[in-house]
């Protein structure tokens, strides 16, 4: 592994672990707008869009494992979902979307809403919980998580800068 790639990987791992500890230890007790925000899906989306589909898939998997651990209950929902979402974000960044903040904002909103929908699915279908309450909780969760879009965009972009420079150098 090249030094630039290693540096970017370590940077992203650091960001991911910080988000995990914030999500599991801080926001499990300290709520924003009455809900706990989800940070790890944002990291997976950023790794995909600002890196590549490979980065997105790999960090989607790691973020998914940590997200399932932070949420509790021993599920594998996010391990699968974030791997796919991270990969798709990378794919869109590789071929369709520009690698800038507007694209990240759009993808983050999609990832957060999709995460909320995945979480409410079982309650909606099997438990028949009130739909308006599920939607309200999902929107509040997405809104609270959206506060971290901007800082995470800059952090992940900074972490992936070394890898991107190395790639450009080798392309020239």
């Amino acid at each position, binding site marked *: 592994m090249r030094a630039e790639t290693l540096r970017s990987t370590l940077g992203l791992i650091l960001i991911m672990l910080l988000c995990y500890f914030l*999500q*599991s*230890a801080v*926001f*499990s*007790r300290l709520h924003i707008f*009455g*809900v*706990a925000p989800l940070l790890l899906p944002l990291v997976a989306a950023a790794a995909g869009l600002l890196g590549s589909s490979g980065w997105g898939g790999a960090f989607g998997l790691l973020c998914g494992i940590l997200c399932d651990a*932070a*949420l*509790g*209950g*021993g599920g594998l929902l996010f391990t699968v979902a974030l791997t796919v979402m991270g990969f798709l974000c990378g794919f869109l960044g590789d071929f369709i979307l520009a690698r800038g903040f507007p694209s990240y904002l759009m993808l983050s909103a999609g990832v957060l809403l999709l995460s909320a929908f995945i*979480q*409410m699915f079982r*309650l909606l279908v099997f*438990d028949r*919980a*009130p739909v308006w*309450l*599920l939607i309200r*909780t999902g929107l*509040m*969760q997405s809104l609270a998580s959206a506060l971290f879009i901007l800082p995470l965009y800059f952090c992940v972009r900074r972490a992936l800068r070394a890898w991107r420079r190395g790639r450009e150098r080798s392309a020239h």
Partner: protein
Amino acid sequence: MRKVLKTVGLTLLAALVIVLALTVLGRLAGRENIFTRSFQSLTAPVEKLFSSGAGKLEELRAALRDYDELKAENEALKAQIADMETEVRQSQGANAENDRLRQLLELKRSHTDYKLLDASIISWGSSNWSSTFDLDKGSFSGVEVGDCVITSNGFVVGVVTETGLYSCSVRTLIDPRAAMGATVHSNGLTAVAEGDFSLLAGGQLKLTYVFENSVLELGDTVLTSGAGGVYPAGLVIGKISGIASDEGGYGQYGIVTPSAELESLSQVFLILEYGEAQHEG
């Protein structure tokens, strides 16, 4: 210059002679020295002022002299207060521990068939859709999936849903997936206490499958019935804090506020084994 000296000198000499003459005459007449007395009269207020200032300075000097001593004394007193506060805190902690152990002893006395294991909460799940937490005991300590989790005073907390070697996951009684057989203590009414998503944020659960003509009273204690085999009978779930109608108004359900204070929970007990006998809560 000589002229000036001569003039001034003569003037001074004349003044001195006058003063001496007046003083001598005054003494001979039995009076005080009018010059010194007049001067003292003029300077008295200023002297008083200086004297007062000096007094203050003396006090300040004395205070400065004692400052180090007072400072040392202050430090010693602060240290003493800190020690006493620590002792009070330790005493409060010991009292709380004592209360908890006393309650546990009581629990063990009233439920001799229980095999209990104490555990601490490591972390709470950060999901907005469920209520779970992790404990620091796992299969290495004999914890199994389905073990019941209670507080030291026998209030139901939840059930173990997953075990690792040194930790386990617990689903609390307010989680939307939680359900247990329940009985109302005052009238023996049987029902099902289950978590509900609409009550999750408020930290409450639902008492459902209540018979049509049954009467639910606010404040009634709800206990586990033992049905289902997960929870032993007679454990306190909580108190009925509200009564509401089902959608369509065909039946009623109770809103139960758990007796276990989940928000402030840090230490819990796992019931690893229990007998089939019925117990009083």
